[in-house]
């Protein structure tokens, strides 16, 4: 009973996080902020959703393979983010800054 409630909570949280990441991907103004939104929410939502499914399945061979999927996701997502960010920096995509002089030291809002 409590495992089923936990599974529901994990699935719900994972769904909400995924949606948040997608909205961030669509609405944020700049490539680097979109990258941040997509990757951070992805790295948490994927394990949550899969843990929700594991709790629902029980202790079988399938859940061991699902744990393997979690491990792969947690390793692969940040790597792709790093590679993409580096490629974009090389491709001279500049981040959107608030003011002209970026190191002026003033807080501009």
């Amino acid at each position, binding site marked *: 009973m409590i495992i089923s409630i936990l599974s529901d909570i994990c699935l719900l949280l994972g769904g909400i996080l995924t949606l948040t990441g997608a909205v961030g991907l669509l609405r944020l103004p700049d490539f680097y902020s979109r990258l941040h939104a997509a990757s951070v929410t992805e790295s948490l939502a994927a394990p949550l959703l899969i843990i929700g499914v594991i709790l629902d399945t029980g202790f079988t061979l399938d859940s061991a393979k699902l744990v393997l999927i979690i491990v792969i996701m947690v390793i692969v997502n940040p*790597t792709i983010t*790093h590679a993409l960010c*580096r490629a974009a920096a090389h491709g001279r995509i500049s981040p959107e800054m608030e003011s002209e002089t970026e190191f002026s030291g003033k807080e501009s809002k």
Partner: protein
Amino acid sequence: MIENLELLIDVCLLTFLLLIVFAAIKTTNLFVATMLFGIFSFVTALLFLDLDAVDVAFTEAAVGAGFTTVLMLSALRLTGAFENVKHRHSVLGLFIVVLTGAALIYGVADFPNMGDANAPVHLHIAPEYIQLTQEKIDIPNVVTAVLASFRGYDTFGETVVIFSAGAAVLLLLGMGHAEPKHEPEQNLVLWVVVKPFIALILIFGLYVQFHGDFGAGGGFQAGVIFASGFILYSLVFGESYARQVVPASILPRFAALGVIIYGLTGLVSLLSDKTFLDYNALSSNPVSGQHLGILLVEAGVGLAVFSTVLLIFYSFSGVNHNE
């Protein structure tokens, strides 16, 4: 509720397919078009899963999203990355396409419903195969049983076709050589992460190869996944290192070896006074003879597919155009 969920997933995925194809046709940047066709393969494989065709989904994802994308990108390296857009609208072309589409839809309307148990295609020989698999071969995956045992000739033909494709690419392009100035830049994070990941991919490929009797899998998928591991190595560490790990000269030999393994299995049955590719001759107990035959045949297919896929990748990436 489950039928509603399935219907929802089907409708959404089919809409995505349409949108992806429209966007892929409209864009003129061929990199973007290749990526969009990659996710087209993903969505198609999802649809196959929803239709309970698991082996097909497996192969579609491995080949369509993995290998074809890499191959198209290798080809894009040699041609331009932008499409030559011709502004020419042909009314005759549109008319012919609409006419053909209407004729097709009119013809399809006569078909029985998809999945209808009384459709002629489901009543012909499929129930016999399903029943005979239980009696004579005794493995859970009926698709592998049909592929490797009941329709062994066809699969042999497919393996020879794959081998011929590799031979044709070899005749046209040759193996080429790695060009040292196109080495990837040093990226420590990628290097550290990719090395164990390649091991994982290779082990998964072997798992799919041998698990094909019990779950989704088989020789074709395993060959493509195994080759993807080496393709990943080549992408991250550079062509020249990859060609040292797997030399280009052994790949045609491995491909031929795969086909020969398949043929020899059939030949052994022939020499034991039975028909070609009748696995009952391979062991004293017919059922274990079938198991052994399927194992050998899938191994031959896996080897042939792996070598051909890697060979085609080497050929495409080894063509050095004049800078």
